[in-house]
Every structure is written in structure tokens, then in C-alpha cells.
């Protein structure tokens, strides 16, 4: 059974968002990492890149599959977790600690389209 952290918002494509003022901290859910298996590579955007809600901003690679990372919100990348370049397995170890990027949101109303923990849990039942 995969863990779902309370207090986060989720996309149907299994990204999570932690809201910190006007910054969205973005990662992938425990369900996503478990589905992928051992993650071997994380393709990250650069700081200052613009991301658009619903469009891919990078990718995860496991031994067997690759999976695009879909931006849950739009905005500018203000930080990326460079530790994932050398240690992509951090996502497997704790998907909620291993954030991937931080985005300065351009439209906070996009958060309204995301799911809370309880509703996300229903999508992966």
C-alpha cells in the first residue's frame, strides 16, 4: 500500500505539490515511485526555465521505463534538487522528502484543479 502524505496537493499524473507562499514545491507520489521501481535517472529543467501546467518539465527513468514529469502548476523554476542527479534513488527512499523542483507560481488559481490527499487516494485505489 503506497503512502499518501496529508496536507499536500496531488495531480492525476502523480505529482505532489507543497505550497509555500507563492512557491510550489513539486515531487512525485509514493505510488508513482513504487510503480516505476528503481529510479536511475532524473531529467531536471534548469533554474529560470518556465513550466506550464499540464506540460512536461522533465522525466524519470527507471530500469524498465521512462515517465514524463508533468507540471501541476505554471511558473518559473526557482530551484531544482541537484542531489537527484547523482542519487535518483532518493525518490524511491522517500518520495515526499525528495522534492524535484520549486516553482514560483504565475497563477495560484491552478492549485484549485489539484486533488487533496483523500481524493488522490481514490484515484489510485
Amino acid at each position: 500500500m503506497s503512502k499518501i502524505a496529508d496536507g499536500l496537493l496531488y495531480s492525476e499524473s502523480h505529482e505532489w505539490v507543497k505550497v509555500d507562499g507563492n512557491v510550489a514545491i513539486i515531487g512525485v507520489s509514493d505510488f508513482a515511485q513504487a510503480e516505476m521501481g528503481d529510479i536511475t535517472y532524473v531529467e531536471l529543467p534548469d533554474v529560470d526555465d518556465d513550466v506550464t501546467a499540464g506540460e512536461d518539465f522533465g522525466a524519470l527513468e527507471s530500469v524498465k521505463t521512462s515517465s514524463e514529469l508533468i507540471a501541476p502548476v505554471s511558473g518559473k523554476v526557482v530551484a531544482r534538487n541537484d542531489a537527484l542527479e547523482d542519487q535518483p534513488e532518493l525518490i524511491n527512499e522517500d518520495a515526499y522528502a525528495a522534492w524535484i523542483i520549486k516553482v514560483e507560481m504565475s497563477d495560484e488559481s491552478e492549485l484549485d484543479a489539484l486533488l487533496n490527499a483523500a481524493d488522490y487516494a481514490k484515484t489510485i485505489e
Partner: protein
Amino acid sequence: MENLLKKTCLHDLHVELGAKMSPFAGYDMPILYSSIIDEHNAVRQAAGVFDVSHMGEIFVSGPQAEAFVSHVFTNDVRGMEPGRILYGMMLYPDGGTVDDLLVYKETEADHYLLVVNAANIATDYAWLLEQAEGFDVKVDNRSDDWGQIAVQGPEAEKFVCGTLGFPEAAALGFYTFCDCCRDGKRVIVSRTGYTGEDGFEIYAAPGQVRAYWQALLDAGVKPCGLGCRDTLRFEAGLPLYGDELTAEISPVMAGLGMFCKLDKPEFVGKDALVAQKAEGVARKLVGIELSDNAVPRAGYPVELEDGLPVGVVTTGYHSITLDKSICFAMVDSAYAALGTPLWIRIRKRVFPGVVVKKRFYQTKYKK
């Protein structure tokens, strides 16, 4: 849908172990039990056991068995000693590949065992029956009667000889087998595999296969799924039918010409291969090593620096043993020479690579 999938004789044990199951070649097969990386490393460093009961066993016998097998098989079975095994292909007349397979020369005169890919059992059997017309032979598809496990890795011999009680396996050289009898039933133990390591493949009745599987697990051999079977065979430079060999890809294109004996008087597809050798082929299978860790996957385009497409990836991974991104790709022959720079398009970006030998990993077979 799931109900239409066939199950091997070990299926319930995989489910019990919590394996991640997925359809493969019409069977519901274990992809991994714990982690592809852990299972892969167990085979490289110690030993692992695979359920390969989905593979096909087709027996050929009769006064003209040698002539018939020689007719349909690219390698040279003429005068083959009993207990020997040859790898090769069956071809269509145009040189396209029907399947790649192992041929076992049995002790009994005029008897051969053909071990074929699960996905191709029906095709192969129909092909063999069609080709058998005019030959005094019997072609017998016994795939459903035989289970099979592969015990692979540097410690495989210890477990096959000791845990499973086949001391005779120690004397086997690579690509030879022995016929054993256990509980009145035939068991075939061969020193073969699909991992690049030393190891054995054991063919037996389903009940015995279940007992061997359990004994190996109890002895600490790691159960390994099809996930690492693919990463292991790929690193060792071994083709997978459907990816590197197809009805459109001949062994010459795949770089497997050494298994096609063109000095044989005839075999199906020989003329096409002779022409391909003489005139050259349009595309060839190559190995490509990337300088980045991005992972090339089957279907990704291979390009020149200016973006001109010259090929396509057939299998690719971030190699677990070598810790670098590598792939097989079918490319225009003009760009197949070792050292040729090629680029691979991975999602929105293009990554530089170079043509290298397909045997990425130095295999460790027992000679």
C-alpha cells in the same frame, strides 16, 4: 483479459512471492520480485533462478531428421555429436528471421530438440510442419509438457550439482547437455543461458520443476524475473527476437552471420544471405554508448549531428553492471563502423553517442 493468459507451472509460486506480473508472449510472467537491479546483480555476482517454462520445446525425429534440421536451421548440425547444442536461426527464403533457437542433438540417433521463443511457438511449429513436407520426420510440439528453469551466475554450478543433485552437471562444457533420469522421468540439464554468465538450463516435468525451484529458493538462490533477464542478455550482446531479429531483420543485418554456415549445401534463406553478404545490407545492428545518463529506449530515433535520421533504437538501458547508457540500434550501414559518432533523440533533447561493440559486457562462460 488476464484469464486468456497462459500460466507456467510456477505461476502460483510467483504470485505468492509477490512478484510483479505482466503479460509476455501470451503468458502471465514475473517481471520482478524485489528489484530488477538487485536481481541483475545477484546473477552477475552469485546466482539467480528464472522461470523460463514459457519457452517452447519441439522434438524432431525420424530417418531424415538430420537432413531436415539442416534444411531449416542456419547452423551446421551435420555430424553433430550427441550431447552438443548449437545456436542459430530459422529463416524465411528472403533471409528474414522466423526465430532464433537452440538445437540439442540427442543421444538417441536421429533425435533433436529445438528450443524456441515462447512468442513464436505456434509460428515455428507451423513453419516446421510446412517445411517437413517430403522429409521422413516427425515434428512434435511438446511445449506444454515441459517446464524449464534457468540457474545463472558464477555460483550456479554449486547449486545445480549440490542443491539439485546433478553432480554430472559439473563436467558439462558450454553448450553441452546431459540427459538425467529422476523419479523415472527425463530431466535435461544443459550448460546454456541468456545472461552472459556461466549457468544451466534445466528442462523437466512441471512437478519436478516446482520442486527444483523451491529447493533453490530455500538454498538462497535469488528468484529473478524477466526484467533482469532482458538487462542481462542485453549487456552480454545477445539479441531478443522481436527487437534485434524479426521477419524483416536477417542474421546478417543483426551481426549474427557467424551462426549461419554458408558452406552448407543449402538451407532455407541461404541464397538471400549469400546475396546480402555479397552486396551488403542497407541496415546493420550496432551498439551505441552515450556520454550522458539519459536512457535510450526502443523506438527512439538515431540521428546525425545535423538531425538527419539514420536509424532507430531496438533495446536500450542505463546498464546496471557498467553504469552507463547504452543501446542496440538498427542504423544505415554507412554509419555502422565502430567509432562513428551518432546522436539519439530522447524526448526533446539529443544526446551524443558513439558506435561500440555490441558485447558491452565481457561474458563469463565456462569453456
